[in-house]
């Protein structure tokens, strides 16, 4: 009989063969360069380069960060499954979810989504095991990895925070804890930031403004200029026509660069204020058009009608679109022979229905009912669904990695459901009750 530890070790080895020493994309490059320069910008959460700086004390390059996100996820999965399944089944389920291509595909890329998912899983695992302090720290770390992680941490903390209180009092305590860790994460990021990048103004705000303009009723230039008062425009007339011409619900770079830009990048505080005002006037003043544009974005994110792309998974050791960046990174790597075949397989799989998030969204809703007796699974499913739905308003580019947490939660629920149903080793509800009672007894004064 293979021991649980051996199963987990084997999963880790398979993952290492696929991912070693960690894949690097645009965001990864930004994190690494900031970590090495010691100057952190708030374009990405500064906690990530700070963590990377710490990791580079011991190991240079992406390997250390890859190890953190992979070990956090695998450890978290193990803790979660141990709550609902027997040890060996839990190890098999953990390994299966960990190596599930849409999950492992993102974990292999050193990126904030994978870090967040790892810490969230760890936080949920510790909370459900009764380790409150560790669980909250892990959830705080997850919150610090992505600004929008708060949508994922709320259901986990509300459902799993071990406390003796009951009913509304329990929920209030959990909400306070959630607010506390979210505020701590935001404050840490704010304190660590050395340079403000004002990324929202030149990117997301412009995307929302142009996207809403696209679906607004016909608007003459005079009205458009009034709505965009103070915003640095690249053209004088035909504003809405340009917005319609350059419309892409999944990108914002075309709005300020290329041959047909609509805006200039803001340089001054006054221009940024004007953008914020214009965003409020246009987006909040035309909710129908805004939601129409957001739907265009979201349906592509969840892959309802996304056009075929080269790969939905990132499997390169440097930025494939910019090989000239390699000397800046001072890092390069080549794949092993087995790894090369795994990468080809991963790319092929990424263009299959296995990478369609809408399937996982629908399945999550179904599993929410099927797994209603497993508190930890319900909490995770709610977390995944909330996090995914928050992307309706926040998604800029429709990357698959944004859906990784929901896919992970769905895979956990599916594995737990299958494990409970078919494994002889499954922890029966009675055993679970005994364990819960023991935990409550431990918490009692």
């Amino acid at each position, binding site marked *: 009989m293979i021991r649980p530890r051996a199963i987990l070790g084997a999963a880790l080895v398979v993952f290492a063969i696929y991912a*070693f*020493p960690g894949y690097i994309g645009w965001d990864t490059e930004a994190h690494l360069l900031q970590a090495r320069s010691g100057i952190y910008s708030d374009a990405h959460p500064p906690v990530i380069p700070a963590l990377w700086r710490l990791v*580079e*004390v011991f190991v*240079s*390059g992406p*390997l250390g960060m890859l190890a953190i996100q992979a070990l956090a996820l695998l450890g978290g999965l193990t803790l979660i499954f141990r709550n609902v399944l027997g040890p060996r089944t839990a190890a098999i389920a953990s390994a299966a979810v960990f190596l599930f291509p849409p999950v492992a595909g993102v974990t292999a890329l050193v990126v904030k989504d994978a870090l967040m998912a790892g810490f969230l899983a760890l936080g949920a695992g510790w909370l459900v095991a009764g380790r409150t302090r560790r669980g909250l720290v892990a959830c705080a770390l997850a919150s610090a990895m992505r600004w929008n992680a708060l949508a994922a941490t709320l259901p986990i903390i509300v459902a799993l925070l071990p406390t003796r209180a009951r009913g509304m009092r329990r929920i209030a305590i959990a909400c306070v804890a959630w607010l506390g860790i979210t505020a701590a994460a935001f404050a840490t990021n704010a304190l660590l930031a050395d340079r403000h990048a004002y990324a929202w103004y030149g990117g997301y705000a412009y995307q929302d403004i142009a996207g809403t303009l696209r679906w607004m009723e016909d608007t003459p230039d005079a009205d458009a200029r009034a709505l965009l008062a103070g915003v640095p425009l690249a053209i004088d007339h035909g504003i809405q026509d340009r917005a319609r011409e350059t419309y892409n619900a999944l990108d914002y770079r075309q709005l300020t660069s290329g041959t047909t830009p609509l805006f200039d990048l803001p340089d001054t505080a006054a221009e940024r204020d004007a953008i914020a005002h214009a965003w409020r006037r246009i987006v909040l003043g035309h909710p129908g058009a805004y939601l129409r544009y957001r739907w265009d974005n979201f349906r592509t994110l969840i892959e309802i009608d996304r056009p075929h792309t080269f790969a939905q998974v990132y499997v390169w050791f440097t930025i494939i679109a910019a090989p000239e960046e390699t000397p800046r990174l001072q890092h390069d*790597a*080549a794949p092993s022979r*087995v790894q090369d075949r795994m990468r080809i397989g991963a790319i092929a799989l990424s263009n299959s229905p296995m990478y369609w998030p809408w399937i996982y969204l629908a399945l999550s809703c179904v599993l929410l009912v099927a797994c209603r007796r497993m508190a930890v699974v319900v909490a995770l499913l709610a977390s995944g669904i909330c996090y995914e739905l928050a992307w309706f308003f926040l998604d800029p580019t429709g990357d698959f990695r944004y859906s990784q947490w929901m896919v992970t939660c769905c895979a956990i629920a599916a594995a737990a459901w299958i494990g409970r149903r078919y494994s002889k080793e499954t922890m029966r509800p009675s055993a679970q009750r005994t364990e819960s009672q023991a935990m409550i007894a431990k918490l009692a004064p």
Partner: protein
Amino acid sequence: MMDLRERANRVRAWLAARTPRQLLLAGWVTCILLCYPGYLSFDSIEQLGQARSGHFTDAYAPVMTGVWSLCEWIFAGPFPMLALQTGLFVFGAYGVLKRALSPRAAAVVAVGVLAAPPVFAPMAVIWPDSLMAGALLAAAAALLDERRAMKAAGAVALVIAGGCRPEVAPATIPLAMLALPASLSGRLRRAGLAVALVVACSGVARLVGWILVDDDTYAWQQRLEWIDVVGTLRRAHADDPMPGLTVVDRARLLEGHDAYDAYVLTHGPKRVAEPIADDAQSEALSAAWHAAIADHFGAYATHRGELMLRQLGITHPWLPVFDDFGDPDHLMLLHHRATPSDLEIAWRAIVHVVALTPLFRPLLYVLLAIPAIVLARRRRELLALVASGVMYEIIQLPLASSVDYRFSHWLVATVWLVLVALAVARKPAWRAS
């Protein structure tokens, strides 16, 4: 204050609860982190290129290139080789030392010796000498084991060691003797069996190398024979004819005394002769080598003696530490590039400081080997180790192809292991039960 003391006690208790295997693993990972992903010299980069392309030459130990090529199936670059050579070293050393020490002490000594700068410096580089040291220790540990499968694994490790450095064969005889059961009587019989095992392993290594090599560059022969021929003729002031060889400049052939780098003698604008390229020239070089030794034996002995004095660090001290991840331009096609972590930078500084001390002079270890042999006379596994180290150093006298600290690494490693183990074994609690 109480809290701190309590915490310290808790940490101590936690450390005491770790198993030897956990200590070994932690030590191994730490040693890898001290040089991750592994240092690469010019030769290492060329060898990686061969391992990746599958086109092997005899310029670099083909068995080692084959091992690297196999590793490249799983993990690419120098990291798997670094993990392999340090892993073989640390687990092999543990396997040998646990015969003399308690498992815990053996684990700590194995890791400590690997991390000792004079031992660590060459182990951090992907070189045949480093893999050879790891393979020899693993072989010793496996051959000591009673199980047949382990003895077979030991023989495989001897083949790998012999494939890395063919001249190590005589130095493996003391290790091969560990494979023989204590019940086997007769010194001559034991020695004969050990020699037979070594001959078999060396033969297999040669055969595997021969099968793997696509292009014969006569590299090993050229490295040794060119320096001997030129060095001997220079010292003898003899302008002997060298039929079948292309001497570029006869005046330069006799310039100066020293000739310790075959590459310089056969490459570049100041070369003395053209490198050999076919079997006829190979035979001509061998003939010239034999003639030079036979006709000017005094000069040859002086030449080899001077080379050995340099090798021992007595004359012309050299910088024995190599710690570079490789030239980025050279590595560009292989897609490998690395930078050191803070830990590595700090460790490099420590190693460089230690390198200034006599601890990096092989002469010190030749001298220390004498008390090591005397003190280890009752412990056959330790005696075999230090005897192997000394024999390998003696082999360098006629066979060293240049002057390099790594050629003395096996002696340094064995002396460290044996002396530290003997020192630790003085405490009864740390001795093997």
